[in-house]
């Protein structure tokens, strides 16, 4: 190393530059099965300009950068360096909420802005960003959306990246850019705001949806330094309803129908194991056995005019639709605390709730159409049983996306990471379930870790296209090498 990190230190300043071992250890591993690998440095920029300088430096020195926006722990392996000598760019210091605009229902945030910080700030204006399910408090909103984590309200999900809109980015080649509508305006957010521009349309500019090349990229294309987000209005009246079923298949017609007519705010399906874990982490000690095998949760929200009447009409309509398929809409959940469920849908957890049960969680998730979900779940459960688990050990969460066209299916296995046997079994479950599900047609649109190889083997044309894109936006391959289909050593060998 030597001079190079010192140069980096001069760029970033000594306070926000560290090669301290204990500091670095925090980034060397996460809660996934990624092989631990310590970075050589961690830097904590405060501004877009500093990010740009860091990236320029990394290009000059051909050093890998691993952007991290959320506080620990991390879960998918994307923040663990895959190569030696990487520098972690910890963006958690960039935590300004740059703008909140109630009239246009937009906000602009830096990458370090967390759900815990943003939601209360938006709430003062009667707004929020549609959240994922119970994010941890230190989870970066921007990172969550960039990684296309599913959000809770399908009818707002006009396309998967919603509510992410425009971005400011420093690409891996050092070029800085605004994406979307912002890219056609003056290159200063202040100037844009003064001109009445609000960074609303994410498309473009021109013929490229640059922001889509950043989503799902695990930080391998560039570093996003700000993003505009569409906000929803916090409902002034909100009610939770529940539909219980013995079999998942019983719920499918209702889920389809609700999404078809865009009824409901939150719409999600949980099996008893997942729901019990979720509620347990929130202090509602209910056993899985006390819950129905499957629960559909439907939130009903009313906003602006006639909000209460809106909820009433929605409830009546939902009830009617449920009855048409032989199900009942209830206002209670088998003795479980409704307020706990409400908290899961609208708040953050201080510590990651999935770790509460056993300290570890092997999660397998993919996208599918709803009709195929039962088959994939069955595949995963069969695997679990073959590994000496029970089917009930694997919790299931189904989140309708894209207004009901695609569904996030998540299979979650808690395990004790301090137990080597459990750990190995959990890893096997994670890897083999991934392989089998990929092979049987589950779409792993977010191919973390061991999933990337089978995903890109299956889609060589996309792999080639993405590598072409990578060579354009990050020609030296410095951005988080070794992730997705971007080789660790291969790219670097190419350039040498």
């Amino acid at each position, binding site marked *: 190393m030597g001079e190079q990190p010192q140069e980096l230190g001069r760029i970033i300043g000594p306070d926000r530059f560290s090669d301290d071992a204990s500091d670095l250890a925090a980034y060397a591993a996460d809660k996934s099965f990624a092989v631990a690998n310590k970075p050589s440095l961690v830097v904590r920029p405060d501004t877009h300009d500093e990010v740009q300088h860091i990236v320029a430096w990394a290009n000059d020195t051909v050093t890998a950068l691993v952007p991290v926006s959320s506080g620990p722990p991390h879960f998918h392996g994307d923040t663990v360096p895959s190569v030696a000598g990487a520098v972690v760019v910890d963006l958690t210091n960039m935590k300004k909420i740059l703008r909140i605009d109630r009239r246009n229902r937009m906000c602009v945030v830096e990458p370090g802005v967390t759900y815990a910080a943003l939601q209360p700030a938006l709430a003062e204006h009667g707004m929020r960003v549609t959240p994922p399910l119970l994010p941890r408090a230190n989870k970066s909103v921007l990172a969550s959306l960039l990684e296309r984590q599913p959000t809770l309200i399908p009818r707002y999900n006009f396309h998967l990246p919603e509510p992410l809109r425009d971005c400011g980015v420093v690409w891996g080649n050092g070029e800085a850019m605004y994406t979307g509508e912002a890219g056609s305006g003056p290159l200063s957010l202040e100037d844009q705001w003064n001109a009445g521009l609000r960074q609303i349309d994410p498309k473009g500019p021109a013929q490229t949806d640059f922001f889509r*090349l950043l989503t799902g990229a695990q930080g391998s294309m560039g570093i996003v330094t700000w993003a505009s987000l569409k906000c929803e209005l916090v409902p002034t009246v909100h009610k939770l309803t529940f539909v219980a079923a013995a079999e998942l298949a019983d719920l499918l017609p209702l889920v389809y129908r609700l999404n078809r007519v865009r009824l409901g705010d939150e719409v999600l399906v949980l099996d008893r194991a997942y729901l019990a874990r979720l509620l347990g982490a929130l202090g509602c000690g209910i056993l899985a056995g006390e819950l129905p095998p499957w629960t559909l949760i439907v939130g009903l929200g009313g906003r602006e005019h006639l909000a209460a009447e809106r909820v009433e009409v929605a409830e009546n309509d939902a009830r009617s639709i449920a009855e048409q398929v032989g199900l009942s809409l209830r206002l209670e959940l088998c003795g479980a605390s409704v307020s706990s469920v409400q908290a899961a849908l609208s708040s953050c957890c201080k510590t990651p709730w999935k770790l509460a049960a056993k300290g570890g969680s092997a999660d397998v998730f993919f996208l599918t159409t709803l009709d195929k979900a039962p088959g994939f779940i069955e595949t995963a459960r069969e695997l679990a049983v073959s590994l000496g688990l029970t089917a009930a050990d694997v919790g299931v969460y189904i989140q309708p996306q894209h207004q009901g066209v695609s569904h996030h299916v998540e299979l979650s296995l808690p395990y004790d990471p301090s137990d080597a046997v459990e750990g190995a079994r959990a890893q096997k479950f994670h890897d083999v379930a991934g392989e089998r599900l990929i092979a049987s047609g589950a779409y792993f649109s977010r191919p973390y870790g061991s999933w990337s190889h089978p995903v890109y083997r299956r889609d060589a044309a996309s792999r080639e296209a993405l590598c072409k894109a990578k060579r354009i936006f990050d020609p030296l391959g410095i951005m988080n090498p070794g992730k997705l289909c971007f080789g660790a050593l291969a790219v670097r060998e190419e350039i040498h």
Partner: protein
Amino acid sequence: MTGPVTHVLPRKAYRALEDIVGAEHVSEDPAVLDTYAFQWLAEVVRPRQSPYMPRPAAVVMPASTEEVQAVVKLANTWGLKVKPHSTGWYHWSAPVKDEDPTLQLDLRRMGRLIEIDESNMYAVVEPYAIAAQVQAEALKLGLNLNIPGVGCSSSIVASACAYHGAGPSTYFMGGNAENVLGMEWVTPEGDILRTGSLGSGDGWFCSEGPGPSVRGICRGTLGSRGGLGVYTKCAIKLAPSFGPTTWEVGGTLPAYRLPVAETQRVYTLAVPTWNAWAEIYYKIYDNEIGYIFHRQFNLAGADLAPAFWLMYNDHTKTLSDVPALVDQPQIKELTEEMRISFQIILAGRSQADIELQDKILDAILAEVGGWKVERFCETDMAEFTNMYLQRLGHKHINFVWVGGYIGSWMQFGTPDWVEGYVPIAIAGLERDAKGGLLVQCGGDAMMGSGSGVPGGGATGLEQFVSYDPADLESTKAGIRHMEDAVKDATSHGFPPGKEFIYLQIGWTDEEIWEALRNSRQPVVYDFQRQIKEAFDPNNVGDRMYPTLPAARLAGEHGNGT
């Protein structure tokens, strides 16, 4: 008149094309070629206002993705350009440079509606399946689809993959940029790339990923307009219909009518000021009502629109009757009443829901001082409006006055921001039409979606400027207006609108590069150059996919702060 630049293909190349698609599906007859060179808007960009774009070297009509692939590979071999079009409405559907020997791919033999997955709400289509066809089939299943502003005669694949895709129903149903799912793309090299879940063999349902979304290369604000490969299939997300599965269309042509469904409402709403217009749009967004939302009828010009539309609804009348109608006292009153007006269709999932939406709308109108335009909400006009907006099958009315239409302004932003340019746009058209070389329909001939982004938030208003393409001076006046509109906008601190989308087609490469270099972020076009080099090494696609040569990217980069 000098003759057209003509490219004669080497015989071997021509015979190879015949081998691929069949001799009856290739032509190099000059008259046939001219029917592809002739394009609306050619007259505003071509030398001496010629109505012909460059003539292709041959027209080829493939029937399958494999045939498209073979033709594209042939073009690579022979150094030809490829210009695909679906329905081919817009001058960039044609070849753009006289000096480029171009194969015009007419995709009309690829018109299948491959499937509709009802439960999962998407349709899979080929390029020549137009929105009207797909909607008709979707309705049978209780589904609907977003029809882009150009109307239902347009190709779903084109609007989703290769152009824009927003329209009156985007507010509720999503634009075709948001609705597109898997795409099948024959790249300029002749490879086949399938995006999203389709590429993984997992079906059509997801356009994103795997990992970063490859579809990000395919289209952005606009698509490549035929300038970067050929899209041969796509899947498109559908929307709920909230209406009957078959339509009992009545009325007498041209003004067909569609009875308003029990759980729908069709209104023309008006407001007293443009400030109120912005207010009502925000309130509609926030209250989440509205299914189809558009300022449509004003395309005829605020001074003439009520008279025009009432004339249109009487099959015994023609444009000759409009002047007399305009002068009638009750029409004058109506014209003032609906000077700032727009159309909205509400759709409820139940009777209670639609009644509630009605109440919400009434509350909103009371807040902004707006009203329902009674005459246009009467059954006849409501049913006409319903038919018009639901099927969007009369978009050729854009050209009703005299056959020439070009659109200025249409800068896209928040309602507040758009309100800012409205008076400038009105004054500009009034000024430019004064000399009588443009149709004088009042300064406000603006039309636009209630929201061009789904869920609300951003709109735009486009001036409908009518000129006579058979009259050189009128055509030139149309061009001058576009240039004036750019000056009007920029001198008032607004960016140019859609004028350059039309006019740039006629610019030289140098002029285009200069404009790109001076754009806010020339790096965008440098990236696109690299994308083109990666996917189109033999330069088979044309400049409808804009790029900036590396040597032109000089001076300051457009860096963000």
